[in-house]
């Protein structure tokens, strides 16, 4: 620790002098800020945006910003769910495929002329079914989350293909217009998915900081054995973490179908990677015990802005995968360097 604090106050008197210790923060606010990866990603994002606006004025246009924010809202919502799982030290590779199942399920419900709300709940339900299997195996049978969710990645995608009969569903029936507002509409000039993203970000940030459940997530990621010994309901919290992740993916799928106006079984392919990349870029630790809501969102924003910037700069958009991949590795590398310095 760099700063000198009145350490010895607690030893001088019994209970008299402890006020001196209670106020001592681990770090000052600026120190905390400078040590946080999310802060530096925000700085990087601001620089890229400023540069792009100068290089290509259309980048900063209202329409383009509307598109960028809406595009990263889908991944951002998934990344929030992924953050919950990654904090516990787990990983969820199935979210992209779950999106496919959810899209097809809600599409089919609409096509069968059921009301919009049934499509929403049906979609969320389909996501929940996938995750109950996932989560139960991880939490209660203690199987590796990597393997279990990798299996579900394959299973859910094939479900989506079979369920849809391998066709695109776009005849949405009477529930269609109402359903489409969720993902396709806008409010005060900002796309609805972005509003949802803002809402969920605030909710997750508050939950992580202010609830026992949030603290238990961090404890499980920090030392699962210790959490168990101290009476944290580890299995239940883990199951709930995967449930949150799947529901976030399901919700993103519903918004995406509403926005695009069609349900395809390929929705969400390779999105799991982008969601994981977003959380890791935002400062979550893949080993668990660290991560935040804001970081996940800013990470997904960075990925989308870079993709958009590349397109505008005339770079083939297929290079995006290279960037996302390099960013994951870079973020993990950065985490290692920071971790070393902390020891």
């Amino acid at each position, binding site marked *: 620790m760099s700063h000198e604090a009145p350490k010895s106050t607690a030893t001088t008197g019994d209970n008299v002098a*402890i006020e001196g*210790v*209670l106020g001592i923060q681990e770090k000052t606010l600026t120190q905390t800020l400078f040590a946080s990866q999310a802060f530096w990603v925000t700085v990087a994002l601001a620089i890229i945006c400023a540069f792009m606006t100068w290089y290509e004025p259309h980048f900063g246009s209202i329409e383009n910003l509307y598109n960028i924010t809406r595009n990263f809202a889908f991944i951002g919502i998934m990344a929030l769910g992924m953050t919950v799982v990654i904090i516990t030290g787990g990983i969820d590779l199935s979210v992209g495929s779950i999106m496919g199942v959810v899209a097809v399920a809600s599409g089919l419900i609409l096509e069968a002329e059921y009301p919009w709300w049934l499509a929403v709940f049906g979609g969320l339900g389909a996501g929940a079914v996938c995750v109950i299997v996932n989560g139960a195996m991880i939490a209660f049978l203690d199987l590796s989350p990597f393997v279990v969710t990798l299996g579900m990645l394959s299973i859910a995608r094939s479900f989506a293909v079979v369920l849809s009969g391998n066709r695109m569903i776009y005849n949405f029936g009477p529930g269609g217009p109402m359903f489409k507002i969720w993902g396709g509409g806008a409010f005060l000039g900002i796309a609805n998915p972005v509003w949802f993203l803002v809402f969920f970000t605030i909710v997750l940030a508050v939950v992580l900081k202010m609830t026992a459940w949030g603290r238990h997530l961090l404890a499980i990621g*920090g030392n699962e*054995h210790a959490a168990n010994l101290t009476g944290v309901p580890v299995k239940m919290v883990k199951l709930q973490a995967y449930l949150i992740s799947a529901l976030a993916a399901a919700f993103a799928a519903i918004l995406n179908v509403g926005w695009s106006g069609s349900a395809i079984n390929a929705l969400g392919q390779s999105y799991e990677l982008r969601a994981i990349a977003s959380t890791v870029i935002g400062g979550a630790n893949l080993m668990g015990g660290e991560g935040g809501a804001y970081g996940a969102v800013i990470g997904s924003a960075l990925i989308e802005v870079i993709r958009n910037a590349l397109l505008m700069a005339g770079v083939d958009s297929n290079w995006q995968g290279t960037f996302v991949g390099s960013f994951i590795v870079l973020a993990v590398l950065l985490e290692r360097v920071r971790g070393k310095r902390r020891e």
Partner: protein
Amino acid sequence: MPILELRQISKNFGAIRALSGVDLKLEAGEVLGLMGDNGAGKSTMVKIIAGNFPPSGGEILVDGKPVHFDKPIEAREKGIEVVYQDLALCNNLTASANVFLGRELKKGFGPFKWLDHAEMIRRAGLLFAELKSETRPRDLVRQMSGGQRQAVAIARTRLSEPKVVLMDEPTAAISVRQVAEVLDLIRRLRDSGHAVVLISHRMPDVFSVCDRVAVMRRGTKVADKLIKNSSPEEVTGLITGAINVA
């Protein structure tokens, strides 16, 4: 009536017999030293009392009533607190978060319950002051010294009014000065009517703080006598097997 009693406790792991027919009694206000070489069954016994796993045979009584523990939290509800050898701390959380882990203080109304950060920090600070430790409630455990980490683990047991505190090698990894502090704490626990089980390899610690010593060898209890009727030499002999039974 003993506050904690084990009757004919045995534990098998497959074909391995870790404990066979161990009897043990513990009175309130008593410090029992539990000694034995590695693999003698000390840790197994601690884990059975702490509820990490149930015994294969025998009975545990708390205040004369038979109890059955499947999970550590059930033992805790009966007033048995444990300081584990690895301390069971989360490095990524603060000292006060670790102290209150699993029994966080909350405030709020109805279904809306928020963590009461201020109160937890305040109470953790009081506990550390009581332990005369320099631990600060807001510090991350990751950045703490061995003694501070020990203080966090011990402070945790003081949240409730435990009947029995089990301490697994609490003085193994801390400085000389802090050893004295931990031993003082054990005495203070005893004086306030708690029963303490001190599992230790360090003969001086046991002889300075314990009232009674029990020696384990190869899964059985080979001695159980008052400290004043024993000597470090005798206990060493019992641990190694040079003296068979006492």
